[in-house]
Structures are given as C-alpha cells and as structure tokens.
C-alpha cells in the first residue's frame, strides 16, 4: 500500500511539470501579451508599458519566465493576476465556492435520478418502459449542455418562474441571510438541472449495462437457486457489485468539481471559475491561467488516485499489485 502510494505520488511530478510547461508554452504561442490591448491606447505612454512589462516579467525569455513561476509555486505563491491585480489564490478561492456548489448540486441531481432509473430499467429489460427511457436517455446524451442552457434561459424568460441567468440578484447585498440564501438557491436550480440532465443520461446507461452484466453472473443464479426472493437478489447481490464503477466515477468527479462547465457558465452568466478562466485565457492573464491549470491538474491526479484507492477497498478482485502493473 505504502509503496503503491509513493510510486503514484512520484509519478505525479513529471505529469504536473509536463502539463504546466505545455500550458505555459501554449500561452506564449499567442501573439502579443496581456499588455497588447493597452499599447493601442494613446493615453498610455510607451514608458509606462515598458515599466509594466518589466514588472510582470513579460520581457524575459520563455524558459526564464516558466522557471520563475515554478520557483514561486514551490514557495506556495501562485502570483498576482495581471487583470485583477489581486492574489491568484484568493481570486480562485472566491469563485471556487460558486462552482463547487453548482457542481455538487448538479451531481446530486443526476445521481439521484440516474441510479434509480437505471435500476428500474435494467430489472425490466426490454419492457416498454426500458425502451422508452433508454431511447430518451440516448437523446438526452446528444443534446449539448450549452444548448440545454439556452433552452433553460428560454424557459425562464417565458414562464418567469426562475431568474434569467446570474448567480444572485442585483440587490443580493441588501438581503438578510435567509432571503440571501433563498436567492442563491433560486438562481442555482436551473443551472444545476441543466448540468445534471446533461450528465444523467450516460450515468443511467452505465448503471443499466452494469446491472445487466451482473444479472447473468453465476453467483446471481446461485442466489436465486438457494431461494432468495428477487428483491434480495437484486439489492444484496446485483446492486452492490454494479456500483463498483460508480466508486471510480466519484473520484473522477472530484476533478470536475472545480473545472465546472465554462460554456454553461458563459451562457447563463454564472460567476464561477469556468467563466473566470475563460476570460483569463482570452486576455492572456498568464498567472491566473497557470494557477487554475495547476489546481485543476492536481485535483485530477488526486481524484484518480483516490478513485483507485476506493476501488481497492470496495472490490476484492482488485489489489495494489494489479493496480500498479496497469
């Protein structure tokens, strides 16, 4: 176990270095830099631009800039955002909460719907219910999340039941705690439903195929043969085994937790990390982008590791030796 952990943690180092370096190069490939827009402005003198360039270190070669960034990161300093002139860590943290709440809500929505529906559909394989729900889920998988977001906006505009985009009302600051909370929840429902619906279909199909696979296994036949009622067979033997891949998926979900859905955030104007990063990439705010990339990568790798650890704990067929050889 310890050897496995050390091995995996050591393997993370080249991955993180590689990903951050490639991202850094990609940002530098873009012609111009953060100050290009300012240079167009006749009110800003070239001296000021030069001064800012030196201050941000933009006048140095690529490798120097990368290693300086890396050096600061090793001292737990992600730098200062060029656009907002604030500490990147604080900036990300302020938006991360919004995105995390949205991701959690949408995950709850999709898991709470997908797993029971998947079970029902698989138990009644080839019934009309199965055919209809499987077909609808396939349709649902094909509708892009951003289009669902547009439809949700249309729905909100037409019915007036929900606010049209945004994370909170303009008068949010004046609301007391409970009204403020209600306001946030009210703004959360539609985006969570959009993201949840978009993710639901594939989850449901996975659940269905898992159960169908295990229903044919020999230990299930044994359970039936010894006279267990069908309910117990399904809940105790089939379901427990069918949930294995979902343990893995919960780990991967950790990475998705903060990466959010930039497009849905852009369409629905949500103040999340996705939108922040979107704008940062477009304005070439290198420290902010690199901070987000680093955070996303670490979350992804840690999430995968946790998923593997959870799988070993849950599935007796998997142990550290087989895991390490993969």
């Amino acid at each position, binding site marked *: 176990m310890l050897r496995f952990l050390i091995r995996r943690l050591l393997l993370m180092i*080249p*991955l993180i270095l*590689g*990903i951050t370096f*490639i*991202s850094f190069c*990609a*940002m530098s*490939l*873009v*012609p111009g830099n953060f100050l290009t827009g300012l240079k167009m402005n006749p009110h800003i003198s070239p001296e000021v631009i030069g001064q800012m360039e030196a201050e941000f270190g933009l006048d140095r070669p690529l490798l120097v800039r990368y290693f300086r960034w890396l050096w600061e990161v090793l001292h737990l300093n992600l730098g200062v955002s060029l656009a907002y002139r604030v500490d990147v860590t604080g900036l990300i943290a302020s938006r991360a909460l919004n995105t995390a709440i949205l991701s959690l809500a949408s995950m709850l929505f999709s898991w709470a719907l997908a797993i029971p529906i998947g079970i029902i559909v698989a138990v009644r394989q080839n019934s009309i219910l199965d055919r209809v729900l499987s*077909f609808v889920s*396939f*349709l649902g*998988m*094909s*509708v*892009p999340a*951003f*289009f669902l977001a*547009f*439809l949700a*906006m*249309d729905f909100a*505009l037409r019915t007036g039941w929900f606010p*049209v*985009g945004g994370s909170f009302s303009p008068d949010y600051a004046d609301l007391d705690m409970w009204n403020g909370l209600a306001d946030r929840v009210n703004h959360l429902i539609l985006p969570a439903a959009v993201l949840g619906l978009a993710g639901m279909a594939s989850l449901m*199909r996975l659940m269905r*195929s898992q159960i169908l696979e295990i229903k044919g296994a020999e230990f299930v036949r044994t359970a039936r043969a010894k006279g267990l009622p069908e309910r117990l067979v399904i809940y105790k033997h089939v379901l427990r085994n069918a949930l294995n891949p979902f343990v893995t998926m919960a780990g991967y979900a950790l990475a998705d937790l903060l*990466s959010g859905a*930039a*497009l849905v955030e*852009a*369409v629905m104007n949500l103040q999340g990390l996705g939108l922040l*990063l*979107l704008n940062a*990439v*477009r304005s*070439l705010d290198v420290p902010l*982008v690199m901070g*987000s*990339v680093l955070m*996303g*990568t670490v979350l*992804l*790798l840690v999430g995968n590791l946790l998923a593997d650890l959870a799988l070993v704990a849950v599935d007796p067929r998997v142990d550290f030796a087989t895991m390490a050889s993969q």
Partner: protein
Amino acid sequence: MSALPRPTPAFADAPPRPTVAARIADEWRGAQWPARVSVIVLVIFYLFAIASPVIAPYDPAYQYRNLPDCPPMRLHLSSGAERANGLFFAYPMKIADPLARRFVEDRSRKTYLRFFHRGHLFTTADPNLPWFMLGSEGLGRDLFSRIVYGARVSMFIGLVGVLISFSLGIFVGAFSGYMGGWIDNLIMRWCEIEMSLPQFYFLLALAAVIPSGLSPVVTFFMIVAIMSFIGWAGFARVIRGMAAAVRSAPFVEAGRALGGSRIRILGRHVIPSMLGFAAINASLSIPGYILGESALSLLGLGIQEPAASWGNLLSQAMDPQNIEHYPWVLIPGLFISAAVMAFNFLGDHLRDRLAPGNAR
C-alpha cells in the same frame, strides 16, 4: 490420416459476391429505425454541405435591410387560377413597430414560391420579396440559407478531424504497443500528459493563436488541426493496448516466423486487425469535433462572420434579449443537436454490428 488432398470447391460453386448496392440494401434492412433515421438525417445534412448554393434559397450574405430579425413566415396553399403563379405563397412581412422590430403580414401582396427556379431547389419568384422559412437574423440575412451554408463547417469538421487524429492515433498507438519497451513507455507518458491537459481551455488558448483576418477555409483547417492535436492521444492509448495484446497473437507469430519485417507486420497485420474498432470509435468521436467548433464559434473564437457555421449562428442567443424577442435564434442549436444525435445513434449501431462482444 488420409493422404488425399481435401477437395477444393470450384470457384463456380461459390455464391456470387454480393454487389455493393445489395450489401447496402442488406445493411439497411437489418438496421433498426433509429439508425435508419440517423442515416437519412446525415444524408440531408451532407447534401446541405455539398450542394449549399442549390439548396439555400437565397444568398447567405445578402442583407434584407428592411427585414432584420423577421420571424419565420407561414406558407399558404394557392387556390384556383392562382396556381399558375406557384403552388405555395407567403405574405411578405412589413415592419409594424421599428423600435421593437415587430413585423406583420402584408396581406395586400403575395410572394409565390417556385421550385427549381433560378438554380435553386426552391425560392420565391421575386427575390426582393423573400420567404424566410426559419426567420432572418439581426442583419436581415435568411437564417435557413445560412444554416445550409453552415452545414459545410459543422459536417466536415468531424470528418477531417477524425481522419487526422485517427491516422495519427492508429499509427502511434500500434507502433508503441508493438515495439514495447522504453519507446512504448515514453510515448504513453506523453499521451497521459496530453490527456490530462484541461482540454477545453487548451483549445481556447490555441484558438486565440489563430489570427482573425484569415479566410474561413484556413481558419477551419487551423481549428481542425488544433482539435486533432488534442484528440489523438486518448485513441492512441486504446490502440496501443490492442496492439500489445495482438503482439503474441498466432497470426502475428506466423508473420514473424515467415520472416516478415517489423514494419510489414505492423502495416499488413497489426493495424488492419484494428480497423473495425477504429471505425466505431471514429463515428462516436465526430460529435466531439462538431461540439468543439460550435463552442469556439459561440464564444466568437471559431469561424468568423460573415462566413456561417452553426456555432456562430447560435451565438446570437448569447444575449437573453434575443432569446426573448426572437426565439428562432435557437434553431441552429436544433441542427447541432440533430447532427450529434445522428452520429451517436449511427456509432451505437455500428458498435452492435461490428463488435458484438462490446455491445452494451
């Protein structure tokens, strides 16, 4: 054991090889209706893309300045002697409230629809009195014509992208899996790095490299190149796993025993054995390219105006006011969804047909 050679059946006895048409007809009969509908939808969309000047009733760039944000027009059936002018007609729209851009039908005039007229599949007899099947957009251009032209981008981006990333993925994957050792290790680590990159943002950053003044065709190919560069790694990994598995398969051993070179075994035996799997994966990964282009164009980084793509047509809907007053700006999204759906159903069908073992 008998020393007699096994009698070989004469070629004349063998059943005739079915013609391509017969095999297609056979596939069609064996398919379920979702797969059939998907094929029909895709054929229509590819016709849009190939024959856009014929299918689009109007010039996609022509701006009907007096008809901006005009709603879809209703079509009426002509009666009696009117039929000589055309079977269908519409009432031209005129602006009732210029500020709110509200239109009403002008009942005093009629504009007749003609088929196979002036080189179009259908268009109105008088080009100055257009019939907007799906409405017009903010500058008064016909939305349907723009969607037909936009199909060129959306329908070909997937094909070209898959072609690039799959030839790359198959070659690198098969090479890596067949070679094994440190080469394999190095290539796979590189793939892992590429797969762990935050893909959408990476796409955004690279799309920003594309200068804005380029022609739509060049932009199209640059977007495809960027997306293929991001997309090939995952596929290479799967192929690599398969190649490693067939490395000791009897037919590869036989090839080696007969003295085939590494390259020959790779090209003649290892790669062909994976083509079926590749076909399934190709059709399932096309939607990713369509969605990627739409997302970029939606954010204004993809195909630029005045060229049309389904993504940049939908970008009008980024303003909630447009959704509220001109709901037909959402129509291009229906086309994107339909295309993605069709490719998904087709891929699902191919998976059932070609790889029954993996059938879900």
